[in-house]
């Protein structure tokens, strides 16, 4: 069976902590995502997302702190603005924008984190492997 590859950019302070909490709470989710820890979600620039897809990732998750909770005051608002832009950009490149997801997870939301990864994996399974330039 086809298994999507997902890159997850997680901010150090909330979403990475949420992923840790999913672990300490032993909440099970599919193993398709590999996390890359960054200090703040605002570090992610469109190029990283594009690079992931171009190299063969089937999905990219960006997760940060809830609005207002960013450890660096306002980073996640910037991420949100960029996210809108990135989705547009993906469309232009012929990549289904559903392959990119932005989520807020607080460090108490282990369950939510697991759910996000589960949902995303399922959605990507139905979308099938990424095919660059083939209308994806």
């Amino acid at each position, binding site marked *: 069976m086809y298994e999507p*590859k997902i*890159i997850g950019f997680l901010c*150090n*302070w*909330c979403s*990475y*902590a949420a*992923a*840790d*909490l*999913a*672990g*300490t*709470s*032993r*909440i*099970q*989710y*599919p*193993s398709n995502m*590999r*996390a*890359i*820890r*960054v*200090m*703040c979600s*605002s*570090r*992610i*620039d469109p*190029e*990283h997302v594009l*690079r*992931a897809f171009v*190299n*063969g*990732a089937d999905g990219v998750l960006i997760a940060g*702190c*809830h609005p*207002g*909770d960013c*450890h*660096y*005051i*306002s*980073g996640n608002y*910037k991420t949100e603005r*960029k996210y809108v832009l990135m989705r547009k950009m993906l469309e232009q490149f012929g990549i289904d924008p559903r392959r990119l997801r932005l989520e807020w997870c*607080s*460090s*108490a*939301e*282990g*369950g*939510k984190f*697991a759910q996000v990864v589960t949902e995303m994996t399922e959605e990507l399974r139905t979308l099938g492997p990424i095919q660059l330039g083939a209308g994806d």
Partner: protein
Amino acid sequence: MVGSVMVVGGGIAGMQASLDLADSGFRVYLVDKAPTIGGVMAQLDKTFPTLDCSMCIMAPKLVATGRHHNIHLLTNADIINVEGNPGNFTVTVKMNPRFVNAEKCTGCGLCAQYCPVEAVNEYDERLTLRRGIYVDYPQAVPLVYAIDREKCIGCGLCENICQAEAIEYDQTPSEEKVNVGAIILAAGFDEFEPDTKKEYGYGRFKNVVTATEFERILSASGPFAGHVVRPSDGEIPKRIAFLQCVGSRDEKSNKYCSAVCCMYATKEAIIAKEHNPDLEATIFFMDMRTYGKGFEQFYQRAQSEYGLSYIRSRVPCIEENPETQNLLLTYETEDGTITKAEFDMVVLSVGLEPPKSSQELSTVFGVPLNDYGFLDWKIFEPLKAKEGIYACGAFSGPKDIPDTVAQASGAAAMASGVISGERGTLVEEKVYPQEIDVAEQQPRIGVFVCWCGINIGGIVNVPEVMEYASTLPNVVFVDQNLYTCSQDTQEKIKQAVEEHNLNRVVVASCTPRTHEPLFQSTIREAGLNPYLFEMTNIRDQCSWVHMHTPEEATEKAKDLVRMAVAKSNLLEPLKSSSVEVTQSGLVIGGGIAGMTAALGLAQQGFTVHLVEKEDHLGGLLRSIRFTMSGEDPQEYLATLEQSLRDHPNVHIHTGTTVERIDGYVGNFTTALSSGEEIRHGICVVAVGGQEHKPASYLYGKDERVVTQLEFEDMLSKGVKAKTVVMINCVESRDDTKEYCSRVCCSEAVKNALKLKEKNPDTNVYILYRDMRTYAFREQYYDRARENGIVFMRYDPETKPRLEKKGESLVLYAHDAALDLDFELHPDLVVLSTGVSPYDNSALSQMLKVPLDRDGFFLEAHMKLRPVDFATDGVFMAGLAHSPKFIDETISQAYGAVARACTIISKERIETEPIIAEVDEELCCGCQVCIPMCPYNARELDEEENIVKVNEVLCKGCGSCVAACPSGAAQQRHFRDNQLSSMIEAFVRR
């Protein structure tokens, strides 16, 4: 004198005080009764009024406290004796056994999985069960398990399973003597137990819960994983009632007001509503006391945006429908109407009581308690329990988190003030060997894969991962460890670095959030720069979450190791640079806040410049004639001024303003209007506020209409009037000023009582909207009613009207409680008009710090950084921040002192190593990055037309880097090529 401090209580207050002390050169012993620190805040879901996730904002403090090399945690401990004097106490601490060796326990939690014993989980407010061997919560500090010996059956399973051999059934209590110069009591509070209030059915009716229980129910990490369901049947409640003042403002339990319940109930109702938008949430209350910064706006939004209903009534009584287990409330509104309403669930807003240990603490430390059992304090010395012993947080009275944190810093300043001469004498700096220069070397990577007992190794095939790692580029050494974090493994890692000339180390184990610093320190001991370390998480984010698919977990672990190795190849040593600190302070504003801060800094041994625009010191305090508790403010002011004038470290600049401020933390230069130029390392903004001058109620048109401060002055000289009417909330909580000014209700009560004391025959009326005499101020409200002062409530829709008929004043009022119109003929009308900020715009621009919507200065974080600005090195205190009482201002001013000392106590400050940088060759000067930085750390160098990073101000979030179109901006340790290498290592195989 001894350069160390004991802090008793490890909640948010204790942690803050400890961190401030440890960061300014003192050794700290932090003692907690419980096996872990964190206190009540660790149980909260979110915090008001910003709805921040409580654990998210607290966890960094927990970790910092646990890791600080100058903070020694003594958990599971009781204080049994104190001897000695200020500057030199000897405290005997009884260390209760936890039956787990704290040195050996890695916190992996395997024992709890095997433990067959179930016990009530206190952390989850008894709504769930935990094991006989346990930690309260996953983020706990120290992360060391404890055996509940009352429940333990001694089966030995944990001992067998624990591969770290940490279980020690035979531990016995021990005693430790600790020598400290000062003591801070931060014992917190306990909750009112509603069992005694039979009418609420708590304990009998399953769907009646306390607010803390409800807090756990709301929490994603709580008993129902964040699903808001009721305990009896797990159904989603559609109607929830919140009952205010349970165990507060009550003759039969606690007479005082608990100060936080109106806000927490509103918060909980809002969160519940966010979980279920169809929820009907009703709050039954007497007075809505939303008096703090941003609170009134929160209350307004709760109604307008979230549609919460607020019903002013006596606390209802509750019956249960035995079939549905719904709850029938009977309540009486102000006009005497009795109504019945049905709810699915009831939340009791239980009050705050003194901690159960308060009597014991009072005896051991010889400190006084007040009538309610909280610590006793004086208005001008709010942080002092007695000489050398200080107190902060809810132990000295119910208060919210920001007030608690400000007090905690304040108590740290008081404590260190006593022993400031001993700064730096007991702190330890770790010495590391000379760093090996790896610049010219080819990467030689060592990979260590952890079994974590069987936590990882039971699922992930560790030998296979290890084998795989050895095939990766530049990996020259691999090893597996039972516990990579154990002490002996650190030695093994060091040896490996030496024997195999490793210049990069990768550990695949648990989470870097807790363990990275340990491994970084290990490789530093082996002579490597700590940033040549990379960690990947194959436990929390792999073996624990893919327990049923071991093969997939192993594949994932291999990928993660490959990604970490890829990044490791590109790692480079990072250094923090350091800049010299001008070890002196500037305080702007010479009112009580500024004077207190200046004296505090001077007592810490630093030169301080106090700048005041008026020709005299004192600010608004000059207009205060009385206090509620009977002290003389003017006498206090005179003494304070004298101490300042006598202190050799203090330079007073009256009749002077600040013209320009340049520089940044550690190195400011300020030009004064006098032409003088001052160099200073920190700045305290204490510019104060003013009494609002109203445009309504004939103020300024008839001299019988005065403000509270004007009235206070009249009172001190003698007032002749038969009828005095006070009107509260004049031009407050409305379109003129949205916020509540916090102090006016109590000021009105104070002045009314004073008037009655002087002229018992005068008729005094107070027209109010909500009486906000929070915390212990409630007793004066009670006294005012006993003394015949008439309180009449009005609604904002039917405000009182004042007219002049002939020569007399006529006041038309509508009593909202009785729904009746009244006519009064006052000789004097006193308006409670609240506090307004000065025009702070110029100063805010000079310092590049923000103002809030109301024009007060905006702190870095509403909850946990109440005296800091987001800009390092700038602090605030007093009315410049928001309206507050004298004692609160003093606490906050000392808070600013402690925060400032964390900077100016050092000769040099180190910059963060992981920060942004600019490649000058690539930068085109487009300046897109500048507004991205929330810390003003980026600036255009106009001469060279390139942007430069101020390394002291940069916090290393990387948002500027993501914005840079040319790739000139990079974030150290998270460079584009480093991130790309990880991306490619995963997807491209």
